[in-house]
């Protein structure tokens, strides 16, 4: 009986789980291996004797040196960080108030407004960048970080609003009513009770918004032109692919370094993040 259960657990749980982890982690592994692989190994055919496609025999940091010395990678990293933080902050602030209002206040047209905000999220970026480019140019924001800080909220605010609206709905309204009887104004109750209780939701909205703007490509490609203003995703691709030559080692080194901040953010807040997505508030 016990034995049967054990192999069933392997068959239905451990083996599929292992396959899934392998499937999701392999690209990361490939990225890391390529970043440390010397050029000699990189541009050699696998059919050759003693080829080692899945690991490297002579790990090297030459690609990292090359990346940092020959490109403005650190500058890009700084740009990306600034743009992602600023647009996340703006979107989170707007999303907090909008989400609170849509979930708690009963006013004429609140449902319509909620749906309208959601619809703006559904407009594909690949269409929206055309009119946005016009606006960015008219406002003379082209080739500045503000062209992205002010355009990313077009998809981040609807996202934050909806996520937070859902989270606020899971918080019993009695908490707020009790605070208002206890002597808080509506704003006081919101800041002292509802927002602290909603921290998991706020954090997961923030992490998501940060990741989305960190990885964003199209707007960054269209609105930024000079090398120093670029973000990591655009900089790496435009500077390390020259014509049909791919600088694979440096590309992967850039990708590896570029994904570190996001990975750090996730690993710090993973518990809050899970709680935020499942929306559990215990009285």
């Amino acid at each position: 009986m016990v034995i049967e259960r054990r192999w069933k657990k392997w068959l239905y749980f451990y083996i599929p789980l292992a396959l899934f982890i392998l499937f999701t982690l392999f690209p990361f592994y490939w990225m890391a291996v390529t970043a440390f692989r010397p050029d000699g190994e990189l541009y050699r055919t696998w059919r050759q004797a003693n080829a080692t496609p899945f690991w490297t025999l002579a790990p090297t940091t030459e690609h990292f040196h090359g990346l940092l010395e020959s490109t403005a990678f650190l500058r890009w990293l700084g740009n990306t960080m600034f743009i992602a933080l600023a647009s996340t902050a703006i979107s989170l602030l707007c999303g907090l108030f909008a989400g609170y209002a849509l979930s708690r206040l009963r006013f004429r047209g609140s449902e319509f407004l909620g749906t309208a905000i959601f619809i703006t999220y559904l407009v594909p970026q690949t269409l929206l960048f055309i009119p946005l480019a016009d606006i960015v140019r008219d406002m003379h924001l082209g080739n500045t970080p503000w062209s992205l800080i002010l355009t990313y909220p077009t998809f981040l605010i609807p996202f934050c609003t909806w996520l937070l609206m859902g989270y606020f709905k899971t918080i019993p309204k009695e908490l707020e009513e009790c605070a208002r009887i206890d002597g808080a104004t509506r704003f006081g109750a919101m800041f002292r009770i509802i927002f602290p209780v909603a921290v998991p939701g706020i954090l997961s909205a923030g992490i998501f918004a940060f990741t989305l703007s960190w990885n964003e490509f199209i707007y960054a490609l269209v609105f930024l032109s000079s090398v120093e203003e670029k973000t990591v995703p655009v900089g790496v691709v435009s500077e390390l692919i020259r014509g049909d030559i791919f600088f694979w080692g440096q590309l992967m080194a850039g990708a590896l370094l570029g994904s570190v901040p996001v990975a750090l953010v996730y690993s710090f807040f993973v518990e809050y993040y899970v709680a935020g997505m499942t929306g559990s508030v215990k009285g």
Partner: protein
Amino acid sequence: MAEVVLSGLNKWYDRNVHAVKDVNLHIRDREFMVLVGPSGCGKTTTLRMIAGLEEISSGEIRIGERVVNDLPPMDRDIAMVFQNYALYPHKSVYDNMAFGLQMRKFAKDEIRRRVQAASEILGIQPLLARKPRQLSGGQRQRVALGRAIVRHPQLFLFDEPLSNLDAKLRVQMRVELKRLHERLSTTAVYVTHDQVEAMTLGDRVVVMKDGLVQQVGEPLELYGRPANRFVAGFIGSPAMNFAEVTINHSAQGVWAETAGLRIRVPPAKAEALRGHAGGKVLLGVRPEALRVANGADVADYALDCTVEVVEPLGNEILLDVRAGSHPLVARVDPATRVKVHQSLRLALDPERLHFFDANTEAAI
């Protein structure tokens, strides 16, 4: 300390749901007033209007000397205990209790003194540093009570505070609430759907149905002299037995008759029922007004029936019987030995017969 007066209170939702209909109520100073009724009867809405959490469609609410219609909840000097306790999950028990005082800018020493005093009364001192999620249901309930009493408000509002507790704890907390009210003697309004809670806690009880006040009175008054069929059926467990009967006059007196039942109307009621002669009225008999007949009982106040179900509860036996076509419940002495399908004669107490108008359902 304050009296609370509701006059002509109405609540409309979206102009088509009339949740509270013209409620007039005078809650006396230091009184423990219970609002009771089935769900959707408007009792919670009424309470929330007193609290200021729900707008008043029309009418007036006065707490003490002030008309509070337009005051926000924070300025009404009230404290409320919610059904789900509504403890702030991110604050410790101490901070939960202190929050209301902090918001009112009390001195730190005063806050500490009051929280200590309240936690002593409720026996929650060892829990002050914990977070709400580390507490059991009963402990959370106590903290919610503590949070209300530290403020020394003019008025306590309770919205079904015991309904999330298990049955045993509920009985225990009921007693504690009553003791607490005795000690603090602050006016309290308490909403519940549980008639036992209403009867045990209330100095007076308001029975509501469909947004209308059905009757206001002391618990035993509601039990003994219900104003209408709804109150009669709602108060008391098991519920009152009802049968539709015809009132007939004969030489011997006035009789209430239906298939399988023929009961003499006691002289005290006969006069009031004269106008209903030949017509239908509702006869109401509480299960505890029925007992197994012995030789001394007169046939005028007895009915023959068949036992269908026997429910021995230890301190009493509930008999589900059928008299003619009428199902009845009788609450009889635990020493009674009866079997299912047995024929039985039950005697009833003529002083405890209730008659209700068949149309208006008002007591006659």
